[in-house]
């Protein structure tokens, strides 16, 4: 039998061939939801699985947060976890999973579904690589959590020379999680560059896609450094007696990832989501689109934090780059606010309130507050030399001809006040408050994306009321948990917490913070309930006046396809001329009913 003769296979089913966008997708296996999911190369399935995995890990992460805060209520002892080491394990697991198992994968999942749709592509560039990244992330994530559970984790055990296998497994599995996220970032960046529609230069891409390009680029530049930290740790731990990396302050070696400015890199898509929901709310193009793109790019640059490894250089957080970079973080956020204000003014009317618009604004509020806290943490490093310099100049002029003067008295007192108030807050729970808010901002952006694109992701619109309630609860809970931590930081509560001599009021603040964490959990539970609620209780989809393809009235390419989109996404390739093609007078959908060929 030659190669040209094919054996008939009775197990396959009929297939539909879409000539332009989707070839015959041959299915070897019978229809089964698990088999389809595990073997799928469709970016929508892959993206949904990322989202599902992140939500499941998210439940665990938020419970861990609550447990850690329960422990922090009593600062005199370690009652719940029975030992400081166990508390350290839970604290580090919460931080690590919040970033790498919850917020970042959630944003990646939404990007995997939406980026090809926004650029008019039928698929990702490397669909199987994206699937491999997903499954490797899931397996490595489970192994990571299990390794922590069997007494591993990134903690130092007093008197232990040989690093346990569980700890080594924690290092390796975290490295594998990071590598999976890097592969996913690579796939997203390549897709954005190579699969765009005709006429869509990078100047014309939707702002969410642009923010994903920036975010994935910054992750690609910074997370390999984390991978190198983990590899050095592990190689050292393999020795009979770990020397300097394998068994010494493990979490401290990678703490830079969970501190400013790097933590803001995980919130870059907040600005991109705003760029999507604001124009739709005001029913017009975003004013200052180019400025918004530049702002997102700058935010990405300022959030690169792989250089700020205080484990190797304790002075890193006092360098000008760190201080000025932390200050400048807030500038792009203000530029986005400016774009929103200009758009509102140009629209001349109130925005159409919707769950996604409200959620993206709440994300912005959380991000702004986090940015403010980041500025507060470096105020001493910024103001002390500036005030000293000013006072020096004043003193020079005061004492000219007869030696230096003493400067202005009020300036000297102000300098002293700044030093007393802000000098020691850097490593306190102000840091934890900032991290919490920055990551909750990322979570809110993800939830905003959920509600905005729910028809594309889930095939049904999610209830608006539930979305608003979930957003308010999440933001309220985040503020309730973070702001007391910030105040406690000024009362010298260390970021790590645990057992320490607390000043008056700290324990009461920790109780409020614990309540806030519970509220965050409740808000997240509302988000999880949104999809079954839409399925069982119905949604706005039932309204016949709503266009199934474009229920929110969006202006970008994803709103041209069905909800949910079929394999191949579109009826054919499109030609675009601006960032909001559905608003262009000269845009014609060649596949619409009645359109000329």
């Amino acid at each position: 039998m030659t190669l040209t003769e094919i054996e008939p296979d009775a197990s396959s089913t009929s297939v539909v061939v879409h000539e332009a966008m989707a070839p015959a997708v041959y299915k070897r296996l019978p229809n089964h939801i698990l088999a389809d999911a595990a073997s799928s190369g469709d970016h929508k399935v892959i993206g949904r699985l990322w989202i599902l995995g992140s939500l499941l890990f998210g439940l665990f992460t938020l419970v861990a947060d609550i447990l850690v805060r329960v422990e922090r209520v009593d600062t005199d002892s370690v009652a719940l976890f029975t030992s400081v080491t166990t508390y350290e394990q839970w604290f580090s697991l919460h931080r690590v999973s919040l970033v790498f198992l919850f917020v970042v994968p959630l944003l990646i999942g939404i990007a995997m579904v939406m980026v090809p749709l926004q650029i008019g592509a039928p698929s990702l560039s490397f669909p199987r690589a994206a699937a491999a990244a997903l499954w490797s992330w899931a397996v490595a994530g489970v192994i990571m959590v299990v390794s922590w559970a069997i007494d591993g984790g990134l903690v130092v055990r007093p008197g232990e020379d040989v690093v346990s296998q569980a700890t080594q497994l924690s290092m390796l599995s975290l490295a594998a999680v990071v590598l999976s996220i890097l592969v996913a970032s690579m796939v997203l960046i390549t897709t954005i560059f190579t699969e765009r529609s005709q006429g869509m230069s990078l100047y014309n891409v939707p702002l969410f896609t642009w923010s994903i390009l920036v975010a994935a680029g910054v992750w690609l530049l910074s997370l390999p450094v984390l991978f190198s930290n983990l590899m050095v740790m592990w190689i050292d731990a393999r020795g009979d007696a770990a020397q300097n990396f394998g068994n010494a302050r493990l979490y401290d070696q990678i703490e830079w990832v969970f501190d400013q400015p790097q933590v803001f890199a995980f919130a870059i898509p907040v600005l991109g989501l705003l760029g999507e929901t604001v124009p739709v709310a005001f029913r017009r193009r975003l004013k200052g689109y180019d400025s918004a793109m530049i702002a997102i790019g700058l935010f990405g640059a300022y959030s690169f934090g792989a250089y700020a490894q205080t484990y190797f250089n304790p002075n890193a957080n006092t360098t000008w780059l760190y201080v000025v970079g932390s200050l400048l973080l807030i500038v792009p956020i203000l530029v986005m606010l400016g774009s929103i204000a200009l758009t509102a003014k140009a629209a001349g009317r109130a925005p159409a309130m919707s769950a996604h618009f409200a959620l993206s604004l709440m994300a912005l509020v959380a991000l702004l507050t986090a940015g403010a806290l980041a500025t507060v943490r470096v105020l001493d490093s910024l103001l002390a030399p500036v005030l000293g310099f000013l006072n020096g100049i004043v003193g020079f002029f005061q004492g000219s001809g007869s030696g230096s003067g003493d400067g202005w008295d009020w300036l000297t007192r102000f300098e002293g006040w700044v030093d007393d108030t802000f000098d020691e807050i850097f490593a306190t729970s102000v840091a934890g408050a900032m991290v919490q808010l920055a990551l909750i901002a990322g979570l809110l952006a993800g939830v905003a994306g959920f509600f905005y694109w729910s028809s594309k992701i889930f095939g049904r619109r999610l209830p608006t009321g539930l979305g608003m309630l979930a957003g308010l609860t999440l933001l309220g809970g985040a503020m309730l948990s973070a702001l007391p931590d910030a105040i406690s930081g000024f009362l010298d509560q260390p970021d790590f917490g645990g057992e320490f001599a607390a000043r008056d009021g700290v324990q009461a603040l920790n109780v409020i913070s614990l309540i806030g964490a519970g509220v965050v959990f409740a808000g997240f539970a509302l988000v999880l309930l949104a999809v079954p609620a839409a399925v069982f209780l119905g949604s706005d989809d039932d309204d016949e006046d709503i266009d199934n393809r474009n229920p929110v009235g969006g202006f970008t390419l994803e709103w041209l396809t069905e909800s949910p989109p079929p394999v191949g996404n579109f009826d054919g390739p499109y030609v675009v001329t601006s960032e909001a093609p559905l608003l262009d007078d000269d845009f014609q959908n060649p596949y619409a009913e009645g359109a000329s060929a």
Partner: protein
Amino acid sequence: MSGTTFSSTDLAHAVVSEAPAPFVPRKRTLQIGTALVTGMWVMYFGGLFGTYVSSRNAWRDVQDGLAAEGGSAISWIPDSAQVELTAPTVMTWTLLMSCVTMQWAVYSFKRSDRRHGLLALGTQAMFGAAVINQVVFQWNQLGLVIDDTSGSSAATLIYTITASHVAMIIMAMVLLAFAAFRALASSDTKDHVDVVASAATFWYAMVGLYFVIWILIFITK
């Protein structure tokens, strides 16, 4: 939505010669993807080099302080280790030569010269294997132990950096194998220039990183 429905039996009985032309992916996709992966590796090594230089500087500062107080300073790389320049220098020159053969492979692919393309890739793989062999020899020659009692972390870092570089060489050789497979399996190598060009990009980055390793670890010690 336009489309035609076929039954699977019709499709299964189709003949390859009558099959529709294959879908040709857009050019540049693989090359951009490889550039990004190369960038990841470069940043990974950047982190390693930063750790190495920082740890070395900190060690020397401490030892200089001890020496100033009249104590005995311990060198960063323990005196018991044998850091010879021969093997690393030979490796550097081998890798530099491999750049020539790599470009020869790209040139051959572009000219649809399958024979010379495969020859170049084979020579390339040989150079890669030779370098890996030299690294293993070097590890035996160095005599470093990770849990050195002096407290210096030179061994850990040198092993991490050199082992990572070996992993990079292996990955580069896998890319060469993919390129060779494409050359063997296709009728015209000109259609697969992107694969060999991607492999070349990665290879050149690997060589550049080894140059930094050579200077950082073996020349400046």
